């Protein structure tokens, strides 16, 4: 399934005319944007602009909290399936699209149990397969060397940065098509942040990433594409180099030069 080519852009997913809201009021207005395979796409914008809301549409997280309205589509390729469609099971969406949260949220169980949980809910029982998967994911998340000798100790005893990498490994273990990152470094110190950023750049070889961040430098450093959102609208989408050096929209320029937000 993984394509090796990187020079031209293959769409992994695409948001098409997405309008979203809980009740009457729309939180997202007619958003359209592509997500390219094996790239990092960043969502930026002032708080309350809807970037996290958009991210949480991708794994139907909103469905957990009662009635919601999705108009428009999020298409997942190559299946070409609208994951917001009514007859699509949100649980299957979450099985294909992983997520890492703002605050590291390991389960208060062992490191091993954390990583293997995604496999457990998928009904995987084969011990050797799970063991391999745990090792593999921890290696991908750059945590294996630090924890290989204490896989069965509690995950909550790890430092904040290690916990966040554990959460990344936990999501990777289920081989997601798309990995959602919701301000993954906002609760971390600068060194751990640098670690995670490096990791994100490394990970795009094997997975497609969509990341919300409030840190513009982070977006500029790690993202191939950047989308700027404001008050529920997608103001501008483009390659990061273009957005940060030569924005087309006045609002984007005002935001990245620090005039508001």
């Amino acid at each position: 399934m993984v394509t090796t080519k990187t020079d031209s852009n293959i769409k992994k997913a695409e948001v098409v005319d997405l309008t979203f809201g809980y009740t009457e009021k729309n939180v997202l207005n007619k958003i359209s944007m592509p997500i390219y395979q094996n790239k990092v796409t960043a969502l930026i914008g002032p708080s309350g602009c809807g970037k996290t809301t958009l991210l949480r549409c991708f794994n139907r997280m909103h469905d957990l909290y009662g009635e919601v309205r999705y108009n428009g589509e999020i298409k997942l390729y190559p299946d070409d399936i609208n994951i917001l469609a009514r007859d699509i099971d949100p649980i299957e969406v979450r099985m294909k699209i992983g997520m890492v949260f703002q605050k590291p949220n390991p389960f208060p169980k062992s490191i091993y149990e954390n990583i293997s949980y995604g496999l457990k809910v998928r009904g995987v029982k084969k011990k050797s397969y799970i063991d391999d998967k745990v090792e593999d994911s921890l290696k991908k998340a750059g945590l294996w060397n630090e924890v290989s000798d204490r896989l069965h100790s509690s995950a909550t005893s790890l430092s904040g940065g290690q916990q966040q990498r554990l959460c990344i490994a936990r999501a990777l273990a289920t081989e997601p098509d798309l990995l959602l990152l919701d301000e993954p470094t906002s609760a971390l110190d600068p060194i751990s942040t640098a670690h995670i950023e490096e990791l994100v750049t490394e990970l795009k070889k094997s997975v497609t990433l969509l990341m919300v961040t409030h840190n513009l430098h982070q977006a500029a450093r790690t993202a191939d594409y950047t989308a700027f959102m404001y008050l529920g609208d997608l103001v501008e989408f483009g390659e990061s180099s273009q957005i940060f050096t030569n924005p087309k929209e006045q609002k984007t320029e005002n935001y990245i030069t620090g005039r508001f937000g």
Partner: protein
Amino acid sequence: MDSKLATTFSKPQSIKRRVRELKELVIRIILFICAASSVLITFGVVWTLLKEAFPFFMEVSVKNFLTDKEWTPLFENPQYGIFNLICGTFLTTAIALSVAIPLGTITAVFLSEYMSNRYREILKPILELLAAVPTVVYGYFALLFVTPLLQKIYPDLSSFNALSAGLVMGVMIIPYVSSLSEDAMRAVPVHLREGSLALGASNLQTSFKVIIPSAFSGIASAYVLGISRALGETMVVAIAAGLQPKISLNPLESTQTLTAYIVQVSQGDLPHGSIGYKTIYVAGVVLLFFTLIFNLIGLRIRSKMEIKFK
């Protein structure tokens, strides 16, 4: 690449998905039935009490029930003046509250405003042990410790009396009043407290002029809980307050509450449908009526409080 986890999206008709959804649905329904059973229990309680109490009024007129001078349903010439039992109930409740409300409130202020977290963490569970002691033990204590003690002060105190039952009940209820009040006081936003202290007010002024008024609805609902506990308390009054229903507010004499009457009659042989059987249900209905009123008042106050703090 490993294809073990590669899933495709299933149609709603797919067996796998149907099985999963069915399983989740069955679990949800079972859990709902469990939660809803509590409603059935309430209806069961109210319905059984009303059903068994109703035949009483086939034999006794409402007028007699409300106006008879005495409550002697098992005597040769029975009288059915329910106010004799209501009077005993409210007398012991009033004595209990005159202990529990002041002491409970002071304790709450003290724990919430004067104690450090560390001491509060230790003292609160110990205080709550007061509510954990079985009530029959309190009954023993009231009858065989407090009454003899009080008789040294009032030699004419009868050995069964409303006073010692009420006092012991009051001590028993202190934690109900203090715990809820303290929770309410500690829910008062810190900035109100700091605002007052910054103006140079003492801890005491802050407590009584800022904290208690802001937490008033929480404290009031603690009082209401205390009242409904006192009304429904059974063993202490059954053991220590006596078996003589009367319309009197003299705490030094013996009396009888609704609950103690039920206990007294239940101890004997009680055939289904006898007048004794019917009267305990009538007493139960009256008791339930009063406690439900206080419960509803408490709920009203509490929901007002929730709105205020949101």
